[in-house]
């Protein structure tokens, strides 16, 4: 016997077992991502001796820093700030990643450190520029290689007092173009009370100077994000200790620093905040850090470049915005500025903001 039922007009599926299967697209995406692999570019900035290389090695549990790659090179402070990139292909549980650590030896080490942030700013903008050039190319690559700096870890020396003028200068300029994650380096010289008061001072100084570090409040996507990120913002900057030496503590092998008065366990949150930094940077917010770089910092750069060159996109680097060749090859005249600074300054501010 057969039954005939017409239900044109109903939206619900016939039975519980019949479903369309659109959730399978997540699996499709995952397969593709696993095949392609990921990229992550992190920059470390801070005076020499603050443990930058050690911290990178600790974070990624392998010798990824520049020093580890060239162990026999004599350590000397360069005369100017240098930018040195080292890339590694790493893999974990089937997930492949090309990790690039960008070191900035020479930063803050000179007698006169004026503008030592400039080569770093230039490097970051150069990466945006090469991405942009590839993006606007007629025959562009399917997957544009991403050398943009996703995150800049800034090492604050553990003075316990307050930020130094150099720290403020650097972060003020760079927080506009890159995600900055400030950390208190070599935090094992601070007691817990000293640490908390230092952090509070730093947070206040950042606020007073209008410096937005990662995670920036204005980029929280929804209430859930805000809740999680608020907790992180209450803890920045993380007070970290790095180490690539293993010790035996309570029957376990742990990474740490052994002193006469005890062993500092790097991954013990009662000792330092390394684990929070690692979780933020790698386990929970890595994708978000990349997204903010792509959809906000890079877009800001792109808009500025588009405005600078109007319709014709010439290949002049952004270092010389004052001389924008006109279509017929003659340099454009600077607009006469008889007015006092007011209006001209406003103009300048505008073009930077946009």
């Amino acid at each position: 016997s057969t039954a005939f039922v017409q239900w044109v007009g109903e939206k619900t599926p016939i039975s519980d077992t019949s479903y369309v299967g659109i959730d399978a697209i997540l699996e499709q995406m995952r397969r593709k991502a696993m095949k392609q692999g990921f990229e992550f570019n992190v920059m470390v900035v801070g005076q020499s001796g603050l443990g930058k290389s050690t911290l990178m090695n600790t974070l990624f549990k392998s010798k990824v820093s520049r020093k580890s790659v060239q162990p026999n090179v004599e350590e000397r402070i360069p005369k100017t700030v240098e930018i040195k990139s080292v890339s590694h292909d790493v893999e974990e549980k089937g997930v492949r990643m090309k990790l690039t650590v960008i070191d900035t030896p020479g930063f803050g080490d000179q007698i006169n450190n004026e503008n030592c942030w400039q080569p770093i700013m230039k490097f970051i903008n150069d990466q945006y520029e090469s991405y942009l050039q590839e993006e606007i190319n007629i025959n562009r690559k399917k997957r544009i290689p991403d050398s943009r700096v996703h995150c800049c870890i800034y090492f604050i020396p553990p003075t316990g007092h307050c930020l130094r003028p150099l720290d403020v200068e650097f972060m003020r300029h760079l927080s506009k173009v890159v995600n900055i994650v400030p950390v208190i380096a070599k935090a094992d010289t601070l007691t817990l009370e000293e640490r908390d008061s230092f952090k509070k001072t730093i947070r206040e100084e950042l606020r007073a100077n209008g410096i937005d570090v990662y995670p920036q409040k204005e980029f929280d996507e929804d209430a859930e994000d805000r809740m999680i990120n608020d907790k992180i913002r209450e803890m920045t900057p993380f007070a970290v200790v790095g180490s690539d030496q293993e010790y035996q503590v309570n029957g376990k092998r742990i990474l740490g620093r052994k002193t006469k008065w005890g062993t500092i366990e790097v991954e013990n949150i009662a000792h330092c905040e390394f684990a929070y930094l690692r979780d933020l940077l790698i386990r929970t917010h890595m994708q978000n850090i990349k997204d903010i770089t792509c959809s906000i910092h890079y877009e800001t750069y792109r808009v500025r470049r588009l405005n600078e060159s109007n319709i014709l996109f010439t290949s002049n680097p952004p270092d010389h915005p004052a001389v924008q060749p006109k279509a017929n090859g003659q340099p454009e005249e600077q607009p006469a500025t008889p007015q006092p600074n007011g209006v001209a300054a406003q103009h300048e501010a505008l073009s930077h903001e946009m």
Partner: protein
Amino acid sequence: PNKVQHKHTEHLCLLFFVFQEKQYVGFATLPNQVHRKSVKKGFDFTLMVAGESGMGKSTLVNSLFLTDLYKDRKLLNAEERINQTVEIIKHTVDIEEKGVKLKLTIVDTPGFGDAVNNNECWKPITDYIDQQFEQYFRDESGLNRKNIQDNRVHCCLYFIPPFGHGLRPVDVEFMKALHEKVNIIPLIAKADCLTPNEIKKLKDRIREEIDKFGIKVYQFPECDSDEDEEFKQLDKELKECTPFAVIGSNTVVEARGQRVRGRLYPWGIVEVENQSHCDFVKLRNMLIRSHMHDLKDVTCDVHYENYRAQCIQEMTRYVRNESDNRMESPIPILPLSTPDVDTEKLIKMKDEELKRMQEMLNKMQQQMHDKEQ
């Protein structure tokens, strides 16, 4: 509830729990991080259906997505169709399953192939596809790229009548006009009027003709060498089965003790989801469950890029012709899009600020001038 739990666990992870596993760095969570973001954002997919009236296109779409998109449709009679041109009609439906949201757009092409003279009846369709590419190109080249809507057509199901002996001239011309603009998946419509042998012969014939005429239909990507044997076997069967012979149905019948989508005939019941009756399940699995993402990728990486490259070359040629004094430089970007409302407001605000400052300065200058006098 699942999503909140997941976040909560990660939250705990950050504050209380430290993973002690020795060599584990933790970036293996990256796919999950991406996953969370995608679930939040949701997905979109644009599917075009083309073919003469009465090929069962609407029914098939309803069967594929378990929807009823054509409830209030009015079918035209022959007389009304005489003057009908090919229209483009969009239906949008939001589907949610297991927490995943899909915004599905069906682009219908009523009138295609129905006239007496069907010369270039595909032109409104190719124009539509090009328009979506053009709009995306403008948006992508514009200043504010925050909320670009992707209306590009990701896939076109082309319905071939089962009555003939292979591809007809209109089928060949249509597919050749579109094969470099959109992923074409040819289907044999209303396959329940053919016996298995007839289906096999027709499929072979169509495949031959697709080769012969150089039609580039959508190709399934190659299987990875490290996939398991079962997957490889399924993939092979899928490829050998094209073009899919499909049947759709808006009605439920009882067959073999179960309620199924099907068609009731005096001689038996055709079950849509019975793989020995037709290829509907294969089509659905391929279109939705295994290749939806690839269809979008090929649209973005191949069809759209071709359009964009052509577009840029044409613009370059145009500008070069316009004035020979201009510097030779590629024009990769034309910010042709009008700024959106927010950007316009911002620009206006800044302009007004400037005006005000200018006025203030003029006043000050005047005052200084007056003082001096």
